[in-house]
């Protein structure tokens, strides 16, 4: 108890750990930590039966085993997304908006689970996932629920492209899901998402949340895997648009692969933004600001910017 007297002098914050038990329990409930793809509203075992591990970078402990997506898995997902597309596109704008509002509310309801799961899988501090990432995810869905409702009045003449393949990195795993998925769904498209192989868990959790929120089967699908899975998705003729965030190198490959196919393409690629630091700031403030501007709380220095 003498530590209390010592802490009385130092006045440090001390550790305040967030329990990881609910997130680990959620993982365990899924086939003891083995995840298939999420296709057409159900869990689907990988056609080739191969799985890879996703780890907690803080401890190197294996969190879960995740399916490696093959061409056949992509085929199944594209078929499901194409089957769901006409029905989803035919909904009245306000009906799609209702789904997006429901997703926003469900993200808020499960925010603690998502925040802890994100922190475990990505390695960024709970403070970042709990206070920034997950609240922003909910806000993006609320925001795009509004756009879903206004689509026909604000964008007259525009129509959904159909099936969108989306490939996202590991720096803001679930936030990136929101950035990609919310506008695509709001506009009336169906989605096949391939999360980064390092951080697939929150996307899978979100897929389940979306299913429980009543999102029609096939509207949102998740196929996990590495670059080869992404390649199958990019090259699949049943996909009308590719949206990719990641390295410039892979972006170039995707540009070449989609050239001449008629697929629409959105690329958000790497690069380092310059940081402007005002010289009156103290050294520690400078270091903090640059670190924050780079957003490098993740497991590696962040590629954003």
């Amino acid at each position: 108890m003498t530590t209390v007297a010592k802490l009385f002098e130092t006045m440090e914050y001390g550790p305040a750990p967030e329990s990881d038990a609910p997130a680990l329990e959620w993982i365990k409930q899924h086939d003891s930590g083995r995840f298939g793809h999420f296709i057409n509203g159900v869990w689907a075992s990988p056609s080739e039966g191969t799985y890879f591990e996703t780890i907690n970078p803080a401890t190197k402990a294996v969190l879960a085993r995740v399916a490696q997506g093959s061409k056949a898995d992509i085929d199944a997902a594209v078929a499901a997304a194409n089957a769901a597309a006409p029905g989803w596109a035919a909904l009245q704008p306000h009906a799609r908006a209702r789904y997006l509002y429901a997703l926003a509310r469900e993200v808020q309801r499960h925010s603690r689970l998502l925040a802890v799961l994100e922190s475990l899988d990505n390695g960024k501090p709970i403070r970042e996932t709990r206070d920034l990432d997950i609240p922003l995810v909910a806000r993006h869905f609320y925001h795009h629920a509004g756009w879903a409702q206004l689509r026909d009045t604000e964008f007259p003449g525009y129509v959904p492209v159909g099936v969108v393949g989306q490939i996202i990195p590991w720096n803001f795993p679930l936030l990136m899901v929101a950035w990609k998925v919310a506008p695509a769904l709001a506009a009336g498209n169906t989605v096949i998402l391939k999360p980064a192989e390092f951080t697939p868990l929150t996307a899978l959790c979100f897929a389940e949340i979306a299913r429980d929120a009543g999102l029609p089967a096939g509207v949102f699908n998740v196929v996990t895997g590495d670059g080869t899975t992404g390649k199958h998705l990019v090259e699949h003729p049943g996909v009308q648009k590719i949206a990719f965030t990641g390295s410039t190198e892979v972006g170039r490959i995707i540009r070449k692969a989609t050239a001449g196919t008629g697929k629409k393409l959105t690329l958000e690629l790497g690069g380092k933004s310059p940081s402007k630091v005002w010289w009156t700031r103290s050294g520690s403030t400078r270091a903090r600001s640059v670190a924050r501007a780079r957003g490098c709380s993740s497991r590696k220095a962040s590629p954003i910017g």
Partner: protein
Amino acid sequence: MKALSDRPRAIPARPFLKDDRNPGIPLDLDVVAGLRVNRSAVERRAATIPTRRTVKKEWQAAWLLRAITCMDLTTLQGDDTPGNVLRLCAKARRPLRPDLVDALGVGHLDIKVGAVCVYHALVPTAVAGLEGSGIPVAAVSTGFPAGLNPFAQRLEEVQASVAAGAQEIDIVITRAHVLTGDWPALYAEVRAFRDACGRARMKAILGTGELATLTNVARASMVAMMAGADFIKTSTGKEPINAVLPVGVVMARMIREYETRTGAAVGFKPAGGIRAAKQALDWMILMKEELGDRWLRPTLFRLGASALLTDIERQLEHFVTGRYAAAHRHPMV
């Protein structure tokens, strides 16, 4: 490009000495007029303070002990009697039950409150009750809580309280000066009170719940500090809205601004409505985040409170025993 060392730098914060006072500076209306507050940014900042940081277990116990030492244990009721005040003084000397002090292993720290705060009439009683303890008596003054008595009377009240032994004076400003933007009048008023205080430390109560806007809070804070306030204090505890975190963020930023300009560190005292230990921790986290550890000591930080001590004692007892005692087992309810 100039070498870094040639460039003008912000005045480095000097180490705070116990007897440092804020001498004040001449009223600079350009500075006052230049103050702007982004309300939504302040509200967002304030909203995250209780959620982003927390202290638990031993750390929480240590922080609560520190909260006690920063507490202005207060009674400002119409039915205050010498008996009440003497009881309060006894509690101020030994704010924690001896068995809790022993269990926490903090006997050598001699934990006691920062001050006892009473109306003028009870200053002599409190001075007698605290004799030899080293705990200062603070008197609310200048027509507390509205501050609308004749000016000469308000000055006399300050002098009378100091003469009666009060070492700290909590003055109230005329809110109308702020609401009408009459900064010279506010400056003159606070300056006069400061002069009347003599050696007693002066806390300027802004009555932020009645100042209408956060920009007004910022400007009133700055003018009060320019006029020589040693502490700026949020509220009397008698306004409809008392100490709330957004106001605390603004006042803390003004204290930082004033220190950068003058090198003088001014204290901060939230008061009114702080009843729960968790609230006290929120205010301390605000101080640590916005101003640093120097503002976690009674020289620069006070919590104006009455019922808070009971909750802190309950929480510490829970830390020691793992159980909460019923309210009637605590003497201060």
